[in-house]
């Protein structure tokens, strides 16, 4: 019976997705899937910003916004870089915008998709998935 890789090794292979969506799958040799994941998560993120969605801070006044921030952190580097350069700032005038809710949904979904990619890469490394 082949030895199962350690959890540390699996984590090391799955976390690069936090830098670039799909990077873990690229490292694991699933190049076409990685490219598809990069495009899909990237487009979801871009549409979210174009639709005036917000990258919520953890200090947001509303607990629902703070919950959305937890999901958006799943994006990893794009979330923190976006926050640093001022993309998707939580602007009180934007909250009344018709597309604000849609934009937030796109951004939250992009974060959750990226979390699923981390778990998928983990499963591939430990042998739960082909």
């Amino acid at each position, binding site marked *: 019976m082949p030895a199962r890789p350690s959890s540390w090794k699996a984590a090391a292979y799955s976390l690069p997705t936090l830098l670039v969506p799909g990077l873990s799958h690229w490292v694991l040799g699933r190049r076409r899937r990685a490219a*598809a994941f990069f495009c*899909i998560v990237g*487009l*979801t993120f871009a*549409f979210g910003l174009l*639709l005036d969605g917000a990258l919520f801070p953890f200090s947001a006044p509303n607990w629902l916004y703070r919950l959305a921030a937890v999901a958006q952190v799943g994006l990893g580097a794009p979330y923190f870089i976006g926050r640093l350069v001022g993309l998707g700032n939580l602007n009180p005038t934007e909250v009344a*915008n018709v*597309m604000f809710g849609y934009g937030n*949904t796109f951004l939250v*979904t992009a974060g959750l998709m990226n979390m699923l990619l981390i778990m998928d890469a983990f499963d591939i490394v430990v042998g739960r998935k082909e």
Partner: protein
Amino acid sequence: MIFRDHFLTLVIFSVLVALFFGVLNHRDRHSFVISVCKTLAWMVLGSLAFAYLMFWTGH
């Protein structure tokens, strides 16, 4: 903001999510197409039903 169309936004969102799960779960081309179609059908029909419910209860 690039567009304000609710239906177009819904369709783009549904297509992206359907493609994501299609790529995540597929083993071959056939299972990919089936997965995308099923997710898309559930999302678009479900969203339309929800929108209709909102419209109906809004009166």
